[in-house]
């Protein structure tokens, strides 16, 4: 058992592609750390650098109190579960699980004890003599876990372990992994791009974009206090709404009308001109079902479409955005791997709401949950830094504008490397 401390880790691939850029993450002993981000943001690369399958271009990788940069994978004593499980097809389930023990030259009695203990934990007892090719996806997944837990590894590393399973099995295995990690109390780094996995499993979550750490915080902190537009848009489903906004005093002008925000938020953004307001769908409600005593503002809008799901209903309200905001939102959509941007507001209404398509409805909004972002840098101006974990761009000595510029440079280098690889 050991802590993993990544200090200013950089990875440039042979073709010049900067996959990981100056990432520092400290994983405490016994902590469950999640790495998330859109496809190609360098999650797997980072994980493979921890385990030793990829060289580290610069920075220090500390496991416990050892610097492991130059150690081979076998000397790092970590266990990894691969995305496609990487089971040895020529060995039985038993021998697959026993493989690390045999390499460590354990005597056959110890091997047998440990393998049977692992197979009991993972309910693999009746499959021990079978070959991986004959197992179902979930069973293979468990064999891969078995191979990881038989060893007394210092940490577990997972690279999207559940992405090959169907939705139901994924849920089961997710709680299985959570249970196992709690039971063994072992340091874990887990790569995923599944929201639910990130939110439910992680003690803390590291959000990456283009190989740059955006925010490192608990799931709740990420959700309530995103450091920038990217994190705000990435965490949460359906995603946060982004609207053009101008602030005067305590009044925010949105495309649908004016709403009032708390004074402390207003103070942080005084005199900033055009901003982007971020409001989660569930911060809205049908005004007619809201308890009158609740704080908040209301506005009227024409509903374009309603999706009723029983317990909630999603209503869609289109709006117009000025070009400066639109451009930033389009960029954001590209970064998030999203489909083309539709400038519409998604609001989540109570299931009992009677709002229907083409209604001119009165919508209530909880403005205390609103965040305001700088359209140029994407920085969250109304962030509560006390409850936001680590946001590298907003740390002492960092300037969000500088960070935005650095990100553009990385983006350019990545495009250049990708183009030269194509040509």
């Amino acid at each position, binding site marked *: 058992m050991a802590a993993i401390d990544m200090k200013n880790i950089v990875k440039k691939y042979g073709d010049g592609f900067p996959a990981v850029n100056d990432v520092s993450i400290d994983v405490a002993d016994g902590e469950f750390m999640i790495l998330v981000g859109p496809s190609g943001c360098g999650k797997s690369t980072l994980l493979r650098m921890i*385990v*030793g*399958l990829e060289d580290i271009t610069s920075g220090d990788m500390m496991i416990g109190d050892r610097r492991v940069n130059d150690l*081979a*994978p*076998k000397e790092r004593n*970590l*266990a*990894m579960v*691969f995305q*496609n499980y*990487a089971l*040895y*097809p*020529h060995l039985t389930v038993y021998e697959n699980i026993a*493989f*690390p023990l045999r*390499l*460590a030259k354990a005597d056959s009695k110890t091997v047998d004890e440990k393998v049977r203990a692992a197979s009991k934990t993972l309910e693999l007892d009746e499959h021990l003599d079978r*070959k991986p*090719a004959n197992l179902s996806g979930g069973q293979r997944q468990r064999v891969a876990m078995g*191979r990881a837990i038989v*060893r007394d590894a210092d940490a577990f590393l997972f690279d999207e372990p559940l992405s090959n399973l169907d939705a139901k099995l994924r849920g089961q295995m997710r709680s299985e992994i959570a249970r196992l990690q709690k039971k063994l109390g072992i340091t874990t780094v887990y790569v995923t791009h599944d929201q639910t996995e990130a939110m439910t499993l992680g003690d803390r979550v590291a959000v990456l974009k283009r190989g740059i750490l955006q925010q490192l915080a608990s799931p709740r902190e990420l959700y309530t206090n995103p450091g920038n537009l990217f994190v705000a848009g990435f965490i949460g489903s359906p995603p946060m709404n982004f609207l053009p906004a101008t602030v005067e005093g305590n009044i925010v002008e949105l495309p649908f009308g004016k709403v009032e925000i708390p004074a402390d938020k207003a103070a942080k953004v005084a005199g900033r001109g055009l901003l982007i307001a971020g409001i989660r769908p569930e911060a809205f409600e049908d005004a007619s079902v809201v308890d009158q005593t609740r704080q908040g503002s209301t506005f009227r809008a024409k509903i374009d479409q309603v999706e009723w799901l029983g317990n909630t209903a999603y209503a869609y309200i289109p709006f117009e955005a000025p070009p400066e905001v639109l451009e930033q939102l389009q960029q954001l959509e590209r970064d998030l791997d999203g489909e083309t941007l539709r400038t519409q507001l998604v609001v989540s209404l109570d299931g009992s709401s009677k709002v229907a398509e083409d209604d001119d409805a009165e919508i209530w909004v909880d403005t205390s949950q609103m965040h305001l972002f700088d359209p140029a840098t994407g920085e969250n101006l109304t962030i509560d830094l006390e409850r936001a974990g680590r946001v590298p761009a907003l740390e002492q000595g960092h300037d969000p504008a500088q960070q935005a510029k650095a990100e553009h440079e990385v983006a350019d280098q990545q495009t250049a490397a990708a183009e030269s690889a194509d040509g």
Partner: protein
Amino acid sequence: MRKLGTAVGCVLILLWCLLPVAWIISLSFKSQTAITNGSPGFLPKDGDGAGWQNYTDVLDNEQFRRAIFNSIGISLIATLLSVIIATLAAYAIARLEFKGKKFVLTMALAIAMFPVVSLVGPLFDMWRTIGLYDTWPGLIIPYMSFTLPLAIWTLSAFFREIPWELEQAAQVDGATSWQAFRKVIVPLAAPGVFTAAILTFFFAWNDFVFGISLTSTESARPIPAALSFFVGADPFNRPASLLAAGAVVSTIPIIIIVLIFQRKIVAGLTSGAVKG
């Protein structure tokens, strides 16, 4: 009706393939005199049969025993070396990016396309000067160089099929690169390794041109060459039935090898080894 057609077709093809073999077996059981006198018919006539006599004669023959020994030794060593080198080379080609990879592959193909006869002359001269003429290595080297290209191509195709992650998983599990190669990659590539081994062994065992040109005495002469030098008691009358017995005996090792390796190949393929 269709079943019948298939059966008839099979029988015809089998006849076509196996008739010469059957014929040589029949010859090997006839006595020398019967053959000299002309003995038509598949089965030996009364009094023409020689029983196992030809076989005991062949096996008692010092020359023949030497030749068998040479052939087995040379072919096995050539196969072993060729498979080991081909496995390592194919692994490098499949896995590593290095300068001159294309060059190695094209050269390998080019060598495989060289006609054997065109090399025999120069090799004869070279081996005489170096002192490899009429020795085992003198045959092993050309056998290897002609079988390596095919072996490398076959094996690198097999290696490419094996997911790289298996090897990385092994390394994370605590294996050195060498252990990962030996315990995971080689077992998975086993069908390929055995295919390469069979191909090499066939080539070495059946070769006649090198065998006859690069040897002069019993010290290295392999069976195909030895059979052509085989003279019985009467130098003017080639002992056809003895030769037939010799030919039959010399196919036995090949059959054994194929049976052994074939089982491995089939076992490997059916266990879904190369599928992730």
